[in-house]
Structure formats: structure tokens, C-alpha cells
């Protein structure tokens, strides 16, 4: 396309650092569930767009799992052409308002940006921030950039699970003219985007708006329909020409230590679901799902889920929130922005500690006992393995423990269909290759966390897209029409 090559008419903004984004101050935001970063104004977005030096190699594109044409949209934003920029992003990523907020940019597009030179105190282009701006801009201005829909093909596709993988596949396939129905086990669509990631990080209204957009395009959503229970996978396979499975990795892991079933011990999923999906933070005024008044909380884990749990707990007005992680800060798997925000919000990081027992009285939690750790030799993955310091223990008094150590694939669907090939050890669905995402069953594809195990929103979206492409060519070739 011509505009891609076009030289910017503006002078690059040579600022070394990203245009800062205003945020709610920590003291204030821990008292509410409103979003923390407040977004860019048009001027700020334009300035950040102009920071991208339009370098020749453009490594950022390959750094993005779905290959968004970053230099093109940064340039357009730099010119103040927001609507065009948005179109450019939407060619590859139909949820910019969401990815701009939750993508681990520092490990992806921004990591490889030519400008990213920490040794020279030079920061990469603020790709995520600009992307978020564009998504928000579209909503504020009601820019309904509905991609055009091709003529109806008469083919039907069932999408099982309405997380980012399923939503992306639905979006792509409806555009190709297929008849798309999404089945979701819960009463609201969105997967982890709805029940897991908290309001202060991803306002629900954004997600609802994106899903409404899909409904407007003709995607049908059937809620409260756990496939495998409400209907067998094989029956769905018969009713639809193709099936995409995007049921996620929603089975919470526990640690297997004594005391884990005491009252006051939650999986992160339960804790976040009660607060996010069921609105428990508004109990009892606006929600009927209770969440206990908590005083001292220990969150176990170091990923995004742990950060979300800790920051959610903080907003329920407790006296103290500990975050207990068995390695050091350098190994925290969470996005940098999340651990940074958590630290700002007075979360007490207790690193190099591994829980060994949850202590209780009368059936309820009163404390958590941890083994102190130190870093030993690097393991196969190159990370230094935490090893126990003999005889060194520490106990904290807490009344609530949130276990956020990861999750595995939910077996409700897979248990119902033994013919579907799984990775036996992990319980994930096996696909033939990542380009097609085809399973061993004739008209069944799968993608997202159910294939990879817990990963990221954008990887799930990428998988949904790849599967959609493969499904489309399957459906068209089957009907004798050559696929593009």
C-alpha cells in the first residue's frame, strides 16, 4: 500500500523517553476500581507517534505476534490521522483498546524496537500506549470501523469459548461471510478478559463494546452453554461445518500443602471471579456474591494473575497485602508495568519465600508459614533455581490466602471427547502445526491457552486468527471454491 512508504511530513520527535501517561496516584486509586493509567490526549499520542523514527529494518513488526504494521500506524498517528491509523491496526489486531492495555509489550514489539537502548537511557516507541489511544479514540468517537463483510457462504462455524482466541476467530470468520455461533459456559462473554483481568486494568465497558461490535456483525452468542455438558463436541461437529475450540486454561492449581482447604484460602480464579465477574466488591449493595472482609492477605505467585489478585485485594481495604514469590524480582513473570504498579500500591513483596503450610484455627486461616529460599545454580531454562535455606522459616499472620501459581487446561470439554488428541501430561489439545491449528479431528481446530497452557491475550488472538484462516480455506475448498 502506498501510504506505508510515504515519508512523514513532520520532524521526528527526538525525545529519549516515552511520552508519559497520566495515572491515578497510588493513594487514591487503591480506594477505587477505576482504571489506573488515564490514556493519552491527541497531542500526547501525536507526540509519541512522532517518536518512532521509521527505521529501515522495522523489527517491531516481527516482535508483534500478529504482525501489526507498527511503523505505518505510528506514522499516521504522528500526522494526526487517527482514523486511518486505526484502520491500519485493525488489519491485524481487532482489539487494540485491549491489547494496548494488556500486551506484554516490553517482551514483544517494544523489546525489539530500534530505539530501545537502555544503556543509553533510550526508551522504545510507546507502541502499546498509542494502540490503546487508538482503540479508545474509536470508542469515544463512535467510529464503527466494521470491516466489510463478504457475501454469505452458507457455511457455519461453531466457536467454543469466548476468550480472546474465540472472539478473534469469530471476528475473522464472520467477515468472510460464514455463519458464526459462539458457545460460552459462563453467563458473560470474554473469558479471562471478563472474569480475570480486573476493572482497574481493563474496564469492562471496553470489552462489552467490542463484543457488541461482533454481535452487530452477526455473530451469535449462546451463553450458559458448557460444551461437553450441555451438548457433546461430536454433536456440535455434526451441526456445524467447522468447530474452533478456545476454552482456555481455566483450571486453578493449588500447592498441595497442608491447610489449603481452610476457609479464607482462594484460588486466584475464585477471588477474581467473585470480584470481577460477580461484582463482589459491590457486595451487598450492588451484588449478591459475597467476598469476605479481609484484613491481612497473602498472595502466592509472581505472574500477572498474582499482581491482579494483590492489587484487587488492596482495593478491598485490608490492612496489609503480602505478595509471596519464591524467586527474586528479576524473575517475576508479570508484565513490568504490573509489578511496578503493585509496588506503588503498597503491596509488600516477600521474595525468596516458598509457602509450606497454611495455619488455621476453627477452620479458618490465621497464618502462612514459608521456607526461606536462595538462588542456586541455573536450571535447564537458564533461570537460577530457588533452593531452600536449611532451617530458615518465616510465618506471617494473615486471614486470607490467594493462590496464584498458575492454571491448567479445563477438562470439561476434552473429557467428553476421548477421540481428541491431547498432550497427555499437560492435558492441552494437540494441534498439527501452529499455522493451521488443526486438531486430529476432521472439522475441529483449537487455539489459545487450551493449546499452549496459560499464555497471553495476543498469542491467543494470533492462534484464533491462524485457525480462522485455515478454517476459511477448508470451508471454501470443500465447496469447490478455491481459497485465497
Amino acid at each position, binding site marked *: 500500500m502506498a501510504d506505508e512508504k510515504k515519508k512523514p511530513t513532520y520532524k521526528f520527535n527526538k525525545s529519549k523517553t516515552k511520552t508519559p501517561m497520566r495515572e491515578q496516584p497510588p493513594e487514591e486509586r487503591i480506594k477505587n476500581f477505576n482504571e489506573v493509567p488515564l490514556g493519552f490526549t491527541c497531542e500526547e499520542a501525536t507526540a509519541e507517534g512522532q517518536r518512532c523514527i521509521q527505521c529501515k529494518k522495522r523489527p517491531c513488526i516481527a516482535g508483534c505476534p500478529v504482525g501489526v504494521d507498527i511503523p505505518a500506524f505510528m506514522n499516521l498517528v504522528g500526522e494526526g490521522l487517527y482514523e486511518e491509523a486505526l484502520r491500519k491496526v485493525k488489519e491485524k489486531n481487532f482489539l487494540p483498546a485491549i491489547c494496548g492495555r494488556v500486551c506484554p509489550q516490553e517482551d514483544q514489539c517494544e523489546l525489539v524496537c530500534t530505539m530501545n537502548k537502555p544503556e543509553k537511557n533510550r526508551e522504545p516507541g510507546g507502541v502499546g500506549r498509542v494502540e490503546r489511544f487508538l482503540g479508545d479514540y474509536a470508542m469515544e468517537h463512535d467510529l464503527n470501523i466494521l470491516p466489510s463483510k463478504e457475501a454469505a457462504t452458507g457455511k457455519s462455524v461453531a466457536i467454543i469459548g469466548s476468550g480472546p482466541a474465540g472472539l478473534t476467530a469469530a471476528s475473522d470468520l464472520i467477515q468472510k461471510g460464514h455463519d458464526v455461533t459462539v458457545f460460552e459456559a459462563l453467563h458473560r462473554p470474554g473469558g479471562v478478559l471478563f472474569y480475570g483481568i480486573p476493572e482497574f486494568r481493563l474496564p469492562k465497558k471496553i470489552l462489552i463494546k467490542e463484543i457488541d461490535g461482533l454481535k452487530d456483525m452477526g455473530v451469535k452468542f449462546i451463553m450458559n452453554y458448557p460444551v461437553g455438558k450441555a451438548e457433546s463436541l461430536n454433536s456440535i461437529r455434526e451441526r456445524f461445518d467447522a468447530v474452533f475450540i478456545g476454552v482456555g486454561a481455566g483450571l486453578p492449581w493449588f500447592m498441595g500443602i497442608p491447610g489449603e482447604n481452610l476457609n479464607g484460602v482462594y484460588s486466584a480464579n475464585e477471588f477474581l471471579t467473585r470480584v470481577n465477574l460477580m*461484582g463482589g466488591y459491590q457486595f*451487598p449493595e450492588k451484588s449478591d456474591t459475597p467476598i469476605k472482609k479481609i484484613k491481612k492477605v497473602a498472595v502466592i505467585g509472581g505472574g500477572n494473575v498474582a499482581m491482579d489478585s494483590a492489587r484487587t485485594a488492596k482495593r478491598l481495604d485490608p490492612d496489609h497485602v503480602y505478595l509471596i514469590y519464591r524467586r527474586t524480582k528479576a524473575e517475576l513473570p508479570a508484565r513490568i508495568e504490573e509489578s511496578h504498579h503493585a509496588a506503588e500500591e503498597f503491596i509488600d513483596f516477600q521474595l525468596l519465600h516458598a509457602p509450606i503450610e497454611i495455619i488455621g484455627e476453627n477452620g479458618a486461616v490465621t497464618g502462612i508459614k514459608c521456607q526461606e529460599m536462595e538462588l542456586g545454580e541455573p536450571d535447564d531454562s537458564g533461570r537460577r533455581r530457588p533452593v531452600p535455606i536449611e532451617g530458615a522459616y518465616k510465618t506471617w499472620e494473615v486471614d486470607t490466602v490467594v493462590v496464584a501459581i498458575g492454571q491448567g487446561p479445563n477438562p*470439561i470439554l476434552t473429557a467428553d471427547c476421548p477421540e481428541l488428541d491431547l498432550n497427555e501430561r499437560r492435558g492441552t489439545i494437540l494441534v498439527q502445526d501452529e499455522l493451521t491449528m488443526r486438531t486430529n479431528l476432521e472439522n475441529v481446530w483449537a487455539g489459545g491457552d487450551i493449546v499452549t497452557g496459560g499464555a497471553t491475550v495476543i498469542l491467543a488472538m494470533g492462534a484464533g486468527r491462524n485457525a480462522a484462516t485455515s478454517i476459511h480455506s477448508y470451508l471454501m475448498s470443500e465447496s469447490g471454491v478455491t481459497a485465497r
Partner: protein
Amino acid sequence: MANRIVAARLLADKTMLFEIEAEHIARRGKAGQFIILRVADDGERIPLTIAHRDEAKGTITIVAQEVGKTTRILNALKVGDEILDLAGPLGKPTDVPAGDKTVLCVGGGIGNAVVWPMATAMKAAGNKVITILGARTKDLLILEDEVRAVSDELIITTDDGSYGREGLVTHAIDQLVADGVHIDECICIGPVIMMKFVCKTTKPHGIKTLASLNPIMVDGTGMCGACRVTVDGKTRFACVEGPEFDGHLTDFDELMSRLSYYKNEEAHSLEMADHDCKMIAAADKLTTETDS
């Protein structure tokens, strides 16, 4: 899928039976499985057993006892109303012996609604079904006729002796054993304390006993772990691995403790609802007064 209520009947004080249009659940549901429903947009998700299904009509029947806010709103619904959200069938079906076995089904209180489909399935598979239904008092006994129709023998006990035999269901079990009745298997459902004692009663006689557990649930699809119970020293998710487990290996004390965790919050929620009701009633009264 409108989940429309097609029949509603008061069975006992605070206990309603609803027949609801839910074609796919009627088709796929089996004895021992449950549904999860929500009755209001900001409402809680609560599990209720599928008490009966009519595949031809495409309906399921549930029986709900009012114990808190959600069941109160539910029980105030009428024929023609729709249940906002209804998901199912969830959980594992009852393990029904292939036939020729003598099965003892024991229900207490609202648990009698769960005994109904279980006894039905046991009978349909060709087993001999002896059922014991317990209630505090005669007026609280539910589904007697329905359960009688699928039992070879029905024993009723009431705590106060107002109907059937006076005493607890465990006394009736002891009596059966004393009478030399051979029982291959027992299945029980009711208040946790009742199930605990049923299991204590059957254990010395070596009668395999399943208990249908009723822990607090949120999603009912294995996603949250709220429903975890300890069976044979291992943590199990009752919504996907249960709700029925070997009663002789179940930690009932833990279940009781976990069920009581939100007691204060639930009472508070109900109080608020009561307060709202009174306010509405007061406001209604005011408007009627000013109208007239």
C-alpha cells in the same frame, strides 16, 4: 433458550417446585446432575439439582428451598417468568448399578428432591429401591408421592413423630439392618450433618455409601475451586468430580466449616433485601394512600 417457567407449585413452607423450559438440559441431564442459575443481573450463581426431566416436553424440574437472598427471589417467580441464566447439566451423573442390586436411598429435608431422580434412575436400571425420607415434621415432607412411585419400599421418618416413624433416618437404617434386610449400596443426600451420620451408620456394616455433597459453588465448571472437598485425604472439585463421593472417605466436618464461611455476609445480604422489601412496601403504601 428462554428458560421460561411453565409450572410452579408450593411443596411446603418456603419450598417451591418449578418446571422450566430447557430443552438441551432435559435431553442431556442425568440423575445426580445439577444446574446453576442466576435470577438477577447482579445476582449470585447458585446450584440446584435437576429433580426431574421431561424430554418430550423439553422441561426440567427444580425444587428450591428458600434459605437466602437468591432462593428467595427465585421462589417468588411465577409461571411465565424467565430464569435469567441457566447452565447445565453440570457435575457427574449418579453411578447407577446395572440392576439386581438392593439400593437404599436416604433423603433428608430438601435432599428429598435429589432422591427423587436418583431413585428413579436406580429403579429404571432394574434395582430394588428402598427409600427413607426424613423431615423435621409432617408439613415439611416433600415429594412423598413422586418418590413412592419409584420405590419398592418407602419409609418415612419425622423428628417429632407427626408422620411416619418418629426419629431420625439413621434409626430407620439401623432397623432395616436389624431386620436382616440385605443392602448392596446406599446413597444419601440431605443436610451435611445427616449425611455424616448416615455414613457413620452404614460403615460398620460395610455398606458402600455415596453422599451427594453440596459445597458452595461459583462457576460449577471447574474453574474456581470454591467447591473443593476432601475425600480420602485428597482435594476434589465437587462440581466436576462430584457431587457424589464415597461417604466413608468424605471429610464432612471440613464441608460444614466451609459452608458456614459466608454466614454473616449472607445474613447481611438478606437483611438488606428485607429492608428493601419493607421500604418498597412502605412506598407502595404511601402511593396507594395518596392515590386514594
